[in-house]
């Protein structure tokens, strides 16, 4: 057991930092941008990253990557997030859609999509959750019915982040209602401007454009849009869910934000206030816990294992970090923390979303229980 970074890992981090600091405006924060502004920025910035193959460094070289391992992926995620996540929505294409295409795509699909993703030309959204299928994703009811060489898709997806600006949707739909709820799911790669797709914003307590509803009405999807075998979507999703759970180094963003909260406390002369001290220290401890627990996940991935309980444990810790950092913001800002643009107002969405997005906190606890408590938990 040792915690040292390998020389090439440290060098990659140094190079990335130098690049990001040279290319980004000071105090850049992609998380706080309006959706259209975000999209344009990320497309321009992704091109610069793509030139260095740093948009998709984990991908195999033949698809525009650098075949980097899990530790470099963590470093990439940490540094991007630390610098305001200039890739914005692109992280999804890179972590999740691209690898799915590499695993399950036809040569034509790979040729068409992977280049566009690795060049940073496109933004994707994921059509997963439905009104009746949230944590219980596999009970989704959006239907894709075979009609000659096409499928006719009808259904509704909700909470879809980035759908308003996305070029494509990674859509899960049911192609079979017989073989068990996991057995009849297929994946479709759907252009969001296809006839029959309607995207509407769901107004929320978060920033503009955070949530969307996507309605599919008699959408005619050629069979070439299907990714992987008919009814064989679920195993692909399972394989990639871990990427989603550790995809964004949330704790790193929270920790960078906590640094600002501490600076604000110092400027306000609050660093000797016991409530502020307690909140800042708890925030820091929670961020550190998430940071070391993601090392566990990455260590397992680097050894070719498929992390499960370590990944869920990290998720719980990272949720705690987002919440603890929000508490720190409010301890420092007090009533000012409810005003637009305040640290509290910027952090609260992260604190709330962390426990719900990509599988609720309770789902993570259930999954850990299955492993840690074992058979008696059933």
């Amino acid at each position, binding site marked *: 057991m040792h915690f040292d970074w390998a020389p090439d890992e440290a060098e990659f981090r140094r190079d990335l930092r130098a690049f990001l600091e040279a290319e980004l405006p000071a105090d850049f924060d992609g998380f706080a941008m309006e959706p259209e502004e975000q999209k344009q920025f990320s497309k321009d910035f992704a091109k610069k990253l793509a030139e260095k193959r740093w948009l998709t460094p984990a991908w195999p070289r033949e698809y525009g990557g650098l075949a980097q391992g899990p530790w470099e992926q963590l470093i990439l995620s940490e540094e991007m997030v630390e610098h305001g996540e200039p890739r914005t929505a692109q992280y999804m294409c890179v972590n999740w859609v691209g690898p799915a295409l590499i695993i399950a795509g036809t040569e034509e699909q790979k040729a068409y999509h992977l280049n566009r993703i690795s060049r940073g030309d496109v933004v994707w959204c994921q059509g997963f959750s439905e009104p009746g299928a949230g944590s219980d994703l596999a009970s989704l009811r959006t239907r894709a019915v075979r009609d000659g060489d096409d499928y006719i898709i009808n259904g509704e997806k909700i909470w879809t982040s980035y759908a308003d600006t996305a070029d494509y949707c990674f859509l899960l739909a049911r192609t079979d209602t017989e073989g068990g709820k996991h057995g009849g799911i297929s994946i479709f790669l759907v252009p969001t401007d296809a006839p029959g797709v309607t995207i509407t914003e769901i107004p929320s307590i978060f920033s503009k454009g955070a949530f969307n509803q996507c309605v599919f009405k008699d959408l005619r999807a050629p069979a070439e849009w299907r990714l992987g075998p008919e009814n064989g979507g679920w195993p692909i999703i399972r394989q990639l869910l871990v990427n989603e759970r550790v995809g964004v180094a949330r704790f790193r963003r929270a920790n960078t934000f906590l640094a600002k909260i*501490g600076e604000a406390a110092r400027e306000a002369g609050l660093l000797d206030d*016991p409530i502020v001290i307690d909140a800042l*220290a708890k925030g820091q401890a929670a961020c550190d*816990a998430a940071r070391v627990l993601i090392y566990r996940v990455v260590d397992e991935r680097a050894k070719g294992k498929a992390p499960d309980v370590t990944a869920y*444990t990290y998720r719980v810790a990272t949720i705690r970090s987002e919440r603890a950092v929000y508490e720190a913001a409010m301890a420092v800002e007090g009533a000012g923390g409810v005003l637009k643009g305040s640290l509290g107002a910027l952090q609260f969405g992260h604190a709330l979303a962390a426990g719900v997005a990509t599988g609720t906190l309770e789902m993570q606890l259930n999954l850990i229980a299955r492993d840690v*408590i074992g058979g008696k938990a059933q």
Partner: protein
Amino acid sequence: MDLELDDTQQAIYDACTRMFERGAGPGRARTLRKTDGFDRDLVQEMQQAGFLDLFADADTGPLAATLITGWASQAAVLAPIGDRALTAPSVIEGDIPLVVAVADASSANMVRYAAEADLLLFLDGKDAYAAKRGEFDVAPSKTKFGYPVGGVSNVKGAKLAAGAADIARNWRRISTAAEIAGAARAAIELTIKYLGDRVQFGRPIASFQAVQHRLVECYVWVESAQWQVREAAARGAPTELATSAAMTASETAHRVFYEAHQLTGAMGFTIEYDLHLWSMRLQTLRQEMGGARAHARDLVAARWGKK
């Protein structure tokens, strides 16, 4: 980075496990507590095996010393392993006596193993002293909370080099946090087993989701404390990491104490049942080195203090 034990660490783990199976565990701890005793024999055995001198050894280092401190606590060892294996060698070169106690001047009335110590490390603000037995006064105190304790006063002894107090304080935080992680893990494992065996309303208590979530929250606290303390030790116990690990460990001790007892019900209140052998110690451990109040103050000063 590689978070699995390397060959040397694994060999130490295997040897420690055999030693603890033979000479530690709840039965041994219970016997020792009956006479307000502690396990000098085991400390002797660990020293002879070289396990107390891993800190300064280039092949093992402070991380290995932290690992054995945690494992000993998990095995309910009733002896100051961390003080001897981690805190003392962080500020004293050369031979160190067998039994070391560490006192912070702010809580000199509650010093674990004060009466048993061959050497007392006394941390008084920016100053640190190493006092041999006879160079300090001890008044043993009564406590229910797991360890033999006493108050120390009139501490003389040798003043250590400038800066030693802060170094020792951070390593003591590491040592205590490792002890918390070990004892808390044992308490949670015992509780998980109990809840799997205990049947009420026709089903094991562990099958209730309300119970599972609370256990798992504790599990995540223990994992957090354990991995934070290991990383902080491997990086040389800088104040920011040592205080942060100590904050997490302190919270872990607090939560695991309540939840393990609440979920175990009245059985957990008995001396017959093993839980108290770990749980009661957690209450003492979380107050060490000034407790969360001091960890938080020092963390914030190190991270955001005057630039």
